[in-house]
């Protein structure tokens, strides 16, 4: 029986492991954290259908349990990777016949955009923090009161040379619209403003959701990037932006500011490049062999990619990647 190591237990890794296992391949799934599920574990509902994130994860866990072929090792990181062997941070090494790297991405650290005062002003939160609040069904301001006016800022840590993140993180626009709708469902009397640069509704149902946010939920959209956040005398946050459609500066007080933080490549990718000979893109994401026919293969035979390790991806794309990588691995193993 062939043995494949899948590094990273997020949705792409889980999908890939399950698909391989069903092809009678022995799989070791390595996860850094104490449980599988990756970033989706912290998410409440997924756009554009408002599917509970848990539903996707339990579906994947169920699929993984269909065979006895998967061994999941949590709490361990891979340090060096070759197609035949993966060395763990514990010093242990595991032999294998192929490797799938599905270590995903890192959420942009909002502290770096100092002008937004994340970590300094209580009611400046990130989209990930908001999902956590949704999960606890407890979206409130720090002092426990109900927000009456909420601003959501797009492109925090995306399309921003100043923080070396030139790429578009792709999912934030949709997340911003989704979260605006959820906030309006929770607090119909609140005003929700989206501050955007471009609204990129690239997937099925996204544009429709955007329109629903505008027409049904009365979510406001202002085209302009928030330039700075400061406290007001009434303890609200004052935000400044240009309303670019009217060509005038705009300011307002809000109770809560949600920063839609982008997807950043893992710092670890640099060592994949240096120590394992894998190729990186300028954005820091790993470089697949090509963008079309071999987009889940690396430049090294026997090492494969799945999910947001190669570029920002939404959950559905990561799942597709996981399945595709499994097929490619199987093809490759058959050829050996």
């Amino acid at each position, binding site marked *: 029986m062939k043995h494949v190591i899948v590094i990273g237990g997020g949705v792409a890794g889980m999908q890939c492991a399950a698909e391989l296992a069903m092809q009678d391949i022995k799989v070791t799934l390595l996860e850094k954290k104490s449980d599988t599920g990756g970033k989706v574990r912290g998410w409440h509902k997924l756009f554009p259908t408002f599917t509970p994130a848990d539903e996707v994860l339990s579906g994947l866990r169920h699929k993984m349990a269909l065979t006895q072929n998967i061994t999941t090792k949590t709490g361990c990181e891979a340090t060096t990777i070759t197609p035949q062997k993966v060395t763990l941070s514990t010093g242990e090494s595991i032999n294998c016949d192929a490797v799938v790297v599905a270590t995903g991405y890192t959420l942009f650290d909002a502290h770096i955009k100092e002008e937004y005062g994340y970590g300094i002003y209580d009611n400046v939160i990130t989209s990930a923090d908001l999902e956590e609040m949704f999960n606890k069904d407890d979206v409130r301001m720090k002092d426990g009161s109900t927000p009456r006016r909420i601003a959501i800022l797009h492109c925090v840590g995306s399309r921003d040379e100043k923080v070396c993140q030139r790429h578009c993180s792709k999912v934030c626009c949709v997340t911003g619209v989704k979260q605006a709708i959820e906030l309006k469902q929770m607090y119909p009397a609140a005003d929700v403003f989206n501050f955007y640069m471009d*609204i990129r509704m690239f997937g099925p149902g996204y544009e429709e959701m955007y*329109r629903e946010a*505008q*027409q*049904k939920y*009365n*979510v*406001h*959209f202002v*085209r302009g990037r928030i330039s700075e956040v400061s406290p007001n005398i009434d303890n609200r946050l004052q935000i*400044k932006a240009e*309303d670019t*459609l*009217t*060509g*005038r*500066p*705009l*300011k*307002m*007080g809000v109770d809560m500011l949600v920063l839609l933080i982008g997807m950043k490549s893992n710092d670890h990718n640099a060592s994949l490049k240096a120590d394992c000979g894998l190729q990186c893109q300028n954005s820091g994401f790993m470089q697949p062999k090509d963008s079309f026919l071999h987009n889940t293969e690396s430049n090294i035979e026997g090492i494969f990619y799945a999910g947001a390790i190669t570029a920002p991806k939404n959950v559905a794309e990561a799942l597709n990647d996981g399945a595709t990588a499994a097929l490619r691995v199987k093809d490759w193993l058959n050829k050996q």
Partner: protein
Amino acid sequence: MINFGFTINKPRTIDLNRNNLNKSNEVIREMPELQTCIGCGSCTASCTAGNLTDFNFRKVHTLVRRGEYQGAYEEMNKCMLCGKCRLVCPRGINTRGVVMLIKRKLGDF
């Protein structure tokens, strides 16, 4: 008062804390589709009046939605109600209706 030869400029910021959004909310309530504007500028590009004057429908209705009513009524009077903008709007907004609605709501301004 002393004349120093210069003045203290008035801020041109749109201040959403100060602006009274009641009229704006009324406009949106009567015509919620106006909210779906994506600012593409098709209306202004095809506008008969806008080709002859500095009338900019997109800008005026956006300002009205932000509670900036000053001059909006007079601006909307420049519209010739030809309806070209309604033909081109990708969001299907009844733009001519918006012009009439804003004029009706803001006649006092």
